[in-house]
């Protein structure tokens, strides 16, 4: 079939790196024992409470007989053995001011295990390397500035001796950037911004876009009103690497502020996909997916790299579930969009313009300052918030989707240092019908193979292993489906909602394990935690409004005080 599935077990939300490229340290993706027949016998081995009440996204890292958990902010990195006993614990110093910038529930991701070291980023702006064996901090660098509104959310990507770190802070009006650090010392090798002059963005002779709209000097300045790019947003989403091509690929976040009337123009290089030279950071190509983003979609969703034939030709593909609701398949060598099909009900975008790759927006759902636009689908959170997976056995892309819509009223908002200048009133809405679904997308047919509908949106990543699709839900159910048909095979009720991604591995004892972090939170789950008053419909990015609706109310009461790591084992 010519299909090469990269490994997806390496824990990291966003930094899905080919296991083969990571070397032998990484746990194997295919525990022979965990499969369609054995899943029913899976039982809980132990749990570990992290003591942290925030949402637990991502997945633990596993190495040999150790399992490493990075708790949410204020962070603690904990190493456990496979019996659940704590080996060591690293608690980095934390700057509490970071909480004030922790939008979307402030979930973080990591750690990443590579070369015997754990690499992690902290919400308050540090990148660190820790020796996996001892817990000794190898290096610790402050790379993001809280004063500028920057935080670090996504896990770093470690590849080829470099640690790639992307900033977060679109809602604080911070200019997004991607930096590469030396994995040995933490020294910064290069840093490229998502807005501004070509020099800072890294647009140079190497840059060749598949679309003519991207040609021209200093588009990062000229597609903005004067000086607006300085507060432009565009923080990177999860980063992927392709060692063969020598590129890193990521989507950039939405431009700041939300109010589109404050930033006329196409607002380069926000809300699009970047491929950069892994060594120098120079941009290879850029494909805009939501230029002049009117709905705060961005393009920073988790992507997949897939090599497979496309209409008869072997191609290196990038599968990008865009927040505007369209699953886009691109050629990752050129950035050309090969296919775009909606994976959730959409009405804001009706299709893609073949010439520019830009979305064709529906007039009725465009937004303007001081004007309320109702029932925009999808909501700003986009349809896919967590890692999709490629099922090696079926070739399907398994997408955890949410089908929320929103009312949006952009408002003028000023840049006031230290504050979040969002500039919009927003209410999320649960449309009629199921609010979420696991969609098995058949790349061949450009259509879903099957859809497993869920009453709540899916906010956690998917694990594809042994012909199974394993994922958690916001109301705390861990589920395993048959990846061929979507038939439910197994379910476990966790003490809290799950926004983490399950990870499967074989222990030194040869038994198959499954680990997942439970602890509801994040943009679609934070209202379950308390601290949010759902009588205010705009609270928590409008999530409160959805939670007031019957279909979403189940999430309430899922707020277990502390997150926990659940480890399952086959007998």
């Amino acid at each position, binding site marked *: 079939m010519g299909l090469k599935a990269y490994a997806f077990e390496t824990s990291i939300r966003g930094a899905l790196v080919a296991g083969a490229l990571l070397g032998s340290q990484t746990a194997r993706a295919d525990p022979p024992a965990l499969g369609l027949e054995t899943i029913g016998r899976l039982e809980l081995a132990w749990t570990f409470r992290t003591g942290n009440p925030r949402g637990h996204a991502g997945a633990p890292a596993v190495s040999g007989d150790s399992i490493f958990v990075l708790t949410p902010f204020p962070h603690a990195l904990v190493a456990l053995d496979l019996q659940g006993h704590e080996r060591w614990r690293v608690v980095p110093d934390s700057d509490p001011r970071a909480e004030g910038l922790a939008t979307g529930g402030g979930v973080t991701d990591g750690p990443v295990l590579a070369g015997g070291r754990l690499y992690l980023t902290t919400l308050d702006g540090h990148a660190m390397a820790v020796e996996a064996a001892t817990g000794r901090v190898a290096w610790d660098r402050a790379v993001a500035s809280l004063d500028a509104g920057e935080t670090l959310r996504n896990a770093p990507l470690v590849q080829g001796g470099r640690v790639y770190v992307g900033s977060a802070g679109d809602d604080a009006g911070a200019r997004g950037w991607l930096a590469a650090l030396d994995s040995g010392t933490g020294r910064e090798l290069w840093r490229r911004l998502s807005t501004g002059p070509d020099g800072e963005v890294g647009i140079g002779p190497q840059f060749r876009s598949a679309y003519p709209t991207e040609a021209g000097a200093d588009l990062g300045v000229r597609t903005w009103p004067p000086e607006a790019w300085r507060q432009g947003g565009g923080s990177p989403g999860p980063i992927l690497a392709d060692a063969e091509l020598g590129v890193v690929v990521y989507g950039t976040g939405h431009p700041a502020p939300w109010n589109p009337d404050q930033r006329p123009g196409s607002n380069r290089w926000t809300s699009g996909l970047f491929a950069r030279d892994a060594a120098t950071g120079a941009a290879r190509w850029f494909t805009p997916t939501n230029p002049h983003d009117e709905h705060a979609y961005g393009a920073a969703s988790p992507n997949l790299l897939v090599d497979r034939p496309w209409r008869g030709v072997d191609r290196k593909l990038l599968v990008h579930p865009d927040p505007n609701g369209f699953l886009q398949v691109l050629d990752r060598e050129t950035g050309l969009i090969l296919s775009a099909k909606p994976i959730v009900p959409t009405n804001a975008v009706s299709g893609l313009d073949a010439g520019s790759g830009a979305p064709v927006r529906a007039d009725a759902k465009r937004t303007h300052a*001081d*004007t*309320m636009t109702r029932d925009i689908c999808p909501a700003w959170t986009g349809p896919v918030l967590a890692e999709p997976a490629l099922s090696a056995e079926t070739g399907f892309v398994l997408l955890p989707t949410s089908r929320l819509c929103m009312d949006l*009223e952009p408002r003028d908002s000023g840049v006031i240092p230290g504050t979040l200048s969002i500039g919009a009133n927003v209410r999320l809405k649960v449309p009629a019908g199921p609010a979420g679904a696991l969609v098995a997308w058949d790349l061949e047919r450009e259509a879903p193979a099957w859809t497993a509908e869920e009453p709540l949106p899916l906010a956690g990543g998917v694990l594809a292993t042994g012909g199974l699709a394993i994922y958690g839900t916001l109301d705390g159910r861990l589920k395993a489906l048959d990846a061929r048909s979507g038939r439910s095979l197994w379910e476990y009720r966790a003490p809290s909602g799950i926004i983490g991604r399950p990870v499967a591995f074989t222990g030194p004892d040869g038994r198959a394990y499954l680990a997942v972090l439970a602890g509801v939170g994040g943009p679609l789950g934070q209202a379950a935690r308390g601290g949010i008053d759902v009588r205010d419909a705009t609270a928590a990015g409008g999530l409160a409004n959805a939670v007031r609706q019957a279909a979403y109310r189940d999430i309430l009461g899922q707020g277990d005080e502390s997150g926990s790591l659940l480890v399952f084992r086959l007998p």
Partner: protein
Amino acid sequence: MSAPAILPGELDRGAERAILHRQLERTWATPAGFWGALTTVDHKTIGLRYIVTAFGFLALGGVLALAMRWQLARPESRVLSADLYNQAFTVHGANMMFLFAVPVMEAMAVYLVPLMIGTRNIAFPRLNAFSYWIYLFGGILLWAAFALQIGPDVGWFAYVPLSGPQYSSGKRADIWAQMITFTEIAALAIAVEIVVTVFKQRAPGMSLDRIPLFVWGALVTSFLVMLAMPAIMIASTSLILDRLVGTHFFNPTEGGDVLLWQHLFWFFGHPEVYIIFLPATGMVSSMLPTFARRPVFGYLPLVLSIVAIGILSFGLWVHHMFTTGLPRLGESFFTASSMAIAVPAGVQIFCWLATLWDGRPVWRTPLLFIAAFIVTFVLGGLTGVMVASVPLDLQVHDTYFVVAHFHYVLIGGAVFPLLGAIYYWYPKMTGRMLSERLGRWVVGLIFVGFHLTFFPMHFLGLQGMPRRVYTYQPEMGWGAANLFVSLSSILLAAGFALFFLDVIRSARRGPVAGDNPWDASTLEWATTSPPPPYNFARIPVVTSANPLWSEREALPVVTGLRVDRREIVISSVSDATPQARESSPRDSIWPLVTAVAASVMLIASIFTPWAVVWGAIPVAAALIGWFWPKGLPEDEA
């Protein structure tokens, strides 16, 4: 002395006049003293009370106007602060429209209509008393609020969102909206009374073509009130709900519409102008024959004009909204209809001119006011034609041109006839004449003062001075004209002061008038001045449009009414053939109690919506008391 009294239950079959008077007096008179003042349902007492109260509000509003002119006399003057000025012009406008102009016109009708159509009391007299109390409390609410510096400050048409919850904090706009509720209840009550009185209580023989023109004006006005006031009630209630309960009628973000307010308001607001103007034209048409010494020319065209204006007045509200960006086609329709209303207005003017032309004018103060009215009103009407044109309105809308225009129409078109009417009917109301010598001064001062004050405002408007500005910058070059206007306003004020002086002085010292001092032709002059509580000892029978001229010796009368209970004659709508004897209610304290209960409810509901629930209980109790049978003769049948 020994003549036999009429026994209870017996009918008046030609009893001796003195006995009849004594019996009727006993039946109809209001008890003396304070209690009697609170309980009376006599339309004359209530009408007079209404008129005096309205003129009191006129005086207060006039003082505010002078204060505003003082502020505007010099550029960047600091006599009134911006906050106080905004309250002042809002209270001035709201007061003049809702507490003076409409009530005084209705009050004149309350007083005059039963006399002019020859009946003993207005229909629903207790409702009439209730109407007055509610009106009084509403007026006090507005002025008390202003005295305490919480007067409304959003303009008399209170455009949202400025008057909405976000931009008008506190209770200022609520007070305006609730004051509207008070005055609308009062006006609606009177409108119902007038319509029923005119349709069903006319003296026998007063067929539709014999109804005095003032009564026609009052009748059409009452229909306008009944059709227009609900719009403003809906608007002000929606505003209160928006402000108090959190509804979104006028909130564009949540599906409401800002322009909805303007449509609702002006759907009421434009007919409002004719509610004020039509009774005034009726007064002119009723007074003119007396002084022209001939029946009015063109009775039928005049009646048709009144009706036509009444109908057309509902088709031109949008000319207040030409600058809001409505579709041009729709605006053009409203231009046409606004212009069209000049035709019936013109018909009236021409008929009056023809009456004067063919008559032999007797130059007394009322006729002077009529002449001043024609000169002024025609000018106001012609500037009205200008503002009705979409393109011209784009320049003059919301400027002093419009201020000048509507003062020409309202003062020239309504207050001048009203003042004339006061001079004309004062002898009927008090039994004494106003001073003719002072009257001429009053006409002169007011006429000259008015034109000197308001005519220059046309030019100020064209020079770019917007209305409702609390000051202006010296370099604008409006200083001289404004100073002139302010000084002229003193002249106008002096005229009004003289008028008030004359009215107060003559109430005791004026020459005694006699029954019919002007030798007028309508029925109100057929009884004594002031009229007895029962108006007419025997109900007259009408044989022509000018009964006192055609039956100079003695009016034919009706007998056969009971005298031991309040009884009136019910007649048919078109021919006024007698149909029945009907009882008319006696004095009662319950209208006042109900009014107090309703006022408490309405005022408290400014502060909490629960007041509507709990406040309804005393209102219900008061109404039960009102309608509870008391075992009086009036309860029979």
